[in-house]
């Protein structure tokens, strides 16, 4: 994969090991997911050149950033980096921080301009303030704009929301979704939050104890029953869909995906708009025949692909095919037994709730 990102890195510090050999796409958002201490931040720092794994290899779109004794220092790599906590220079105003990046931006390629970055992150009214006068969320938005203004070819984000409370996260996520939608900029996004990964990721890398446990397209990887990181209540899949109909009477919108359609509460999406829908495993129940006497709106014909035990005692995970799309249901083992579920069996998937996450 000459066009992608290749990283082969080994680090051994007291109490910590990193050993990865990864090929990642250099398009869209690659979510690097794992609990703290899993090595995901170290991986990102090695790709940025902020940390050095002796003997490692880092290549980006055919360019060698680290190989043998060759090591391109951070300031010569075409990256932008957003740190976990806001990292604005305290002696410069928000505008001064942005100018710091603009003066050093890569002028060899078309660049995002100040107005575009400022509008994308909604920070125009903050430009003349010092970092000390900004809230945590505002500082992080300025930091993201600053990373964009350096005109990177790869944007690295290290848990940019982790230091913020839930409300501030909700304030920034839409801006991150803007980035993903509007810029053709590959992003490596480190996170330990299943919600952020589901909302932003296109490709998913799961890490634990310094190793990569799974790497693949988000939808496919999340639907794997052997997904190595136990998500518990957060287990679920992400489905890319298109709005194909709107029902004004009941205020519903139809989102079609490969193999079916779901009715969602209409939140103002236009016809033809692409949306990302998250379906949690705990919100799917299974039936052998179709019931029309329940309150559940979405009932889809499905086929059982695979059954596995959940980490929680007494529960099972069932992977289902709805057309070409995989869903995962979480039910009691007793139900799985009573319904005589087995690979190939036709069932009705009753989906209690779906969330549009984009």
């Amino acid at each position, binding site marked *: 994969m000459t066009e992608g990102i290749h990283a082969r890195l080994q680090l051994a510090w007291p109490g910590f090991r990193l050993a990865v050999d990864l090929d990642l796409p250099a398009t869209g958002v690659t979510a690097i997911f794992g609990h703290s201490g899993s090595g995901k931040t170290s991986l990102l720092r090695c790709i*940025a*050149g*902020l940390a050095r794994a002796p003997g490692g290899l880092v290549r980006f779109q055919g360019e060698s950033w680290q190989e043998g004794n060759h090591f391109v*220092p*951070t*300031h*010569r790599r075409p*990256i*932008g*980096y957003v*740190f976990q*906590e*806001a*990292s604005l*220079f*305290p*002696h410069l105003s928000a505008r001064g921080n942005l100018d*710091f*990046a603009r003066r*050093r*931006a*890569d002028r060899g390629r078309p660049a995002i301009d100040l107005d575009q970055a400022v509008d994308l992150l909604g920070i125009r009214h903050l430009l003349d303030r*010092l*970092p*000390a006068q900004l809230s945590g969320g505002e500082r992080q938005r300025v930091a993201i704009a*600053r*990373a964009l203004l*350096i005109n990177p070819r790869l944007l690295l984000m290290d848990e940019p929301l982790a230091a913020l409370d839930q409300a501030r996260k909700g304030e920034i996520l839409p801006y991150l979704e803007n980035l993903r939608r509007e810029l053709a900029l590959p992003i490596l996004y480190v996170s330990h939050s299943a919600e952020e990964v589901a909302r932003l990721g296109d490709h998913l890398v799961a890490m634990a104890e310094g190793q990569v446990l799974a790497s693949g397209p988000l939808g496919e990887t999340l639907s794997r029953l052997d997904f190595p990181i136990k998500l518990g209540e957060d287990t679920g899949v992400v489905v890319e869909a298109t709005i194909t109909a709107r029902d004004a009477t009941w205020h519903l919108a139809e989102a079609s995906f490969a193999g079916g359609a779901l009715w969602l509460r209409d939140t103002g999406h236009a016809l033809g708009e692409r949306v990302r829908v998250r379906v949690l495993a705990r919100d799917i129940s299974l039936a052998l025949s179709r019931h029309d006497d329940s309150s559940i709106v979405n009932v889809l014909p499905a086929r059982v692909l695979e059954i596995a035990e959940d980490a929680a005692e007494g529960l099972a995970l069932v992977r289902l095919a709805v057309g070409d799309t995989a869903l995962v249901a979480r039910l009691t083992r007793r139900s799985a037994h009573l319904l005589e579920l087995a690979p190939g069996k036709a069932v009705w998937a009753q989906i209690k709730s779906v969330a549009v996450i984009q």
Partner: protein
Amino acid sequence: MSGALLHWQAIWLTLKLAAVTTAVLLVLATPLAWWLARTSSRLKQPVAALCALPLVLPPTVLGFYLLVLMGPQGPVGQFTQWLGIGTLPFTFAGLVVASTIYSLPFALQPLQTAFEGLGERPLEVAATLRAGPWDRAVHVVLPLARNGILSAAVLAFAHTIGEFGVVLMIGGNIPGATQVLSVAIFNHVEAMEYIEAHWLAGGMVVFSFLVLLALYAFNQRGARIGVGTGGAGHD
């Protein structure tokens, strides 16, 4: 020579010595403080202790050894003679060398504290914004350590002005060449000229107070915008 002229000569010489010493110290102590703040070398503790020696040694001890080293028989003296510039004791250059060593800890300590307070993060951030090492030093480290640098300059300047023992040992008491204020005051007191001594001594008290007042006021203002002496508040 009239007494007033002698006073002005001593004042001028003192200010010149303090200014030159401060300039030399900022150039030398900044990289040294940077190294001390960031190194994990085994040499760090011995070097730090060596640099702090002038704090605890009596100035006469320091002055004595400098005199021996820089004198005609000392290694430094031999070297300067070989260079063709003679020996340093009893010259202005000798005073600068001695004051630089004597005031080193006063410049070093605030610089080192400021650099240590910076932490790794602003430098990493600057590197991800394509700033190379010199760019980082000039546009990130120096502005963030601004108050530390200012403290170092003020303390070095003020401490050099107050220097007495080392100067007496190494520079003697040559009016117009090496006779600084503190030595002039000493001469007046020796000669029972208390009025003259009062003028000079009182002037130094007022001057020192004003310098320190300015320093504290400046640090206070810096702290308000989040750039403390130690570069604190960089989050």
